[in-house]
């Protein structure tokens, strides 16, 4: 963007701890004790995003300059489009232009290859997640989790329901009380998940059903991971690590 004659401010990155993604099951009790389900991290990101200097800068440009800015950023409305066919039907597309395209090329090399592998790999979840949910090993652990939660005073059938309840509560209570309630729930959730080995069992069943996928799908999954791994190595050479 600088070479195109525009200023561009780096977005404030979340810390390593803040940017942890939870997945279906979380059993990190310490994290839950500190962050609940992460609502305050989201609120912090929201506050910072509203004060992103790029917003005011973009607004200060003339209409003609704004068009040049957009073209430089990602190619604008007329950017070339790349597509990926999904194994179960449907096409996803992505505009690929400007500095975004250049950055992705630097990270992934073969951008089309990465996009296709990534989208195919992502679409596979719909194939194996229902199998995990129906698997006796998993449902037994989930039932044990639910009983544990019930004993702790939080009757929920699954972790998703618990998280949703926390989100709903936040709409009904004041912020401080809502966060305390969220933390209590998240700690109980993670504690019960640890006691019942729910995450480990879920992960093991996921690996089991992935192995049963047709080899073409497993190849896409491996290819997607290889792209990510290479991109991470290239990124590490370009950017400082998160702390």
């Amino acid at each position: 963007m600088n070479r195109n004659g525009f200023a561009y401010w780096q977005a404030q990155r979340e810390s390593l701890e803040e940017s942890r993604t939870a997945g279906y099951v979380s059993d990190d009790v310490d994290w839950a004790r500190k962050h609940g389900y992460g609502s305050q991290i989201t609120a912090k990101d929201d506050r910072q995003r509203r004060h992103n200097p790029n917003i005011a800068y973009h607004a200060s440009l003339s209409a003609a300059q704004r068009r040049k800015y957009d073209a430089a950023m990602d190619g604008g409305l007329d950017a070339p489009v790349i597509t990926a066919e999904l194994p179960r039907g449907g096409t996803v597309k992505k505009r690929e232009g400007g500095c975004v395209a250049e950055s992705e090329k630097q990270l992934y090399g073969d951008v089309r290859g990465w996009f296709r592998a990534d989208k195919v790999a992502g679409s596979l979840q719909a194939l194996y997640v229902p199998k995990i949910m129906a698997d006796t090993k998993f449902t037994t652990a989930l039932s044990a989790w639910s009983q544990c939660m019930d004993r702790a005073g939080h009757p929920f059938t699954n972790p998703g329901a618990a998280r949703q309840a926390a989100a709903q509560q936040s709409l009904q209570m004041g912020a401080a009380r809502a966060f305390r309630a969220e933390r209590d729930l998240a700690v109980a959730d993670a504690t019960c998940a640890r006691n019942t080995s729910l995450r480990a069992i879920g992960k093991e069943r996921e690996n089991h059903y992935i192995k049963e996928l047709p080899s073409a799908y497993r190849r896409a999954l491996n290819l997607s991971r290889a792209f990510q791994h290479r991109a991470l190595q290239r990124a590490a050479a370009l950017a400082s690590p998160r702390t």
Partner: protein
Amino acid sequence: MPRIRALIATAGLVLCSLLTSPSPAHASTQGDNCNAKWPGRNGSMHAWDWTDCTGTYLGGTTGNDLNWGDGVGAFTNASNRARSVMNAGFFGGRDVVAFYFLPGGDGSYGCLAPGELYADYLGDNTFTNGASMDRNIMASQWVTASACAGNSWIT
């Protein structure tokens, strides 16, 4: 704030040279109005109560609104009305907009990537619970792409 190198996700930004003129997207009637309403990449997201970014403008924001139906935030009295939405956010970090079936910012959702620009007809899309997204959105927030399930991407 001094000018500094920007980062895309975890990467360093390439100081790239000006693009040569790309091949134009083939013309279509779908999305014409969304294209006309495109504000450029200014960090915001938007919603309208009709298709192709027409009808009543429901609101827009650079932030989150976990309850489109209450009287506060960027979206007020907007629950279960949106038929088209737009993501004009900056790339990197939480650059995807997640739209939710219920207020609160959890539960079933659909994700709009920044590269997609907009979804001009939500009737083409479903939440992760299978329900149509047309006139069914009650909350929105910015998330990372990794927070979105493979089948949650909307077009």
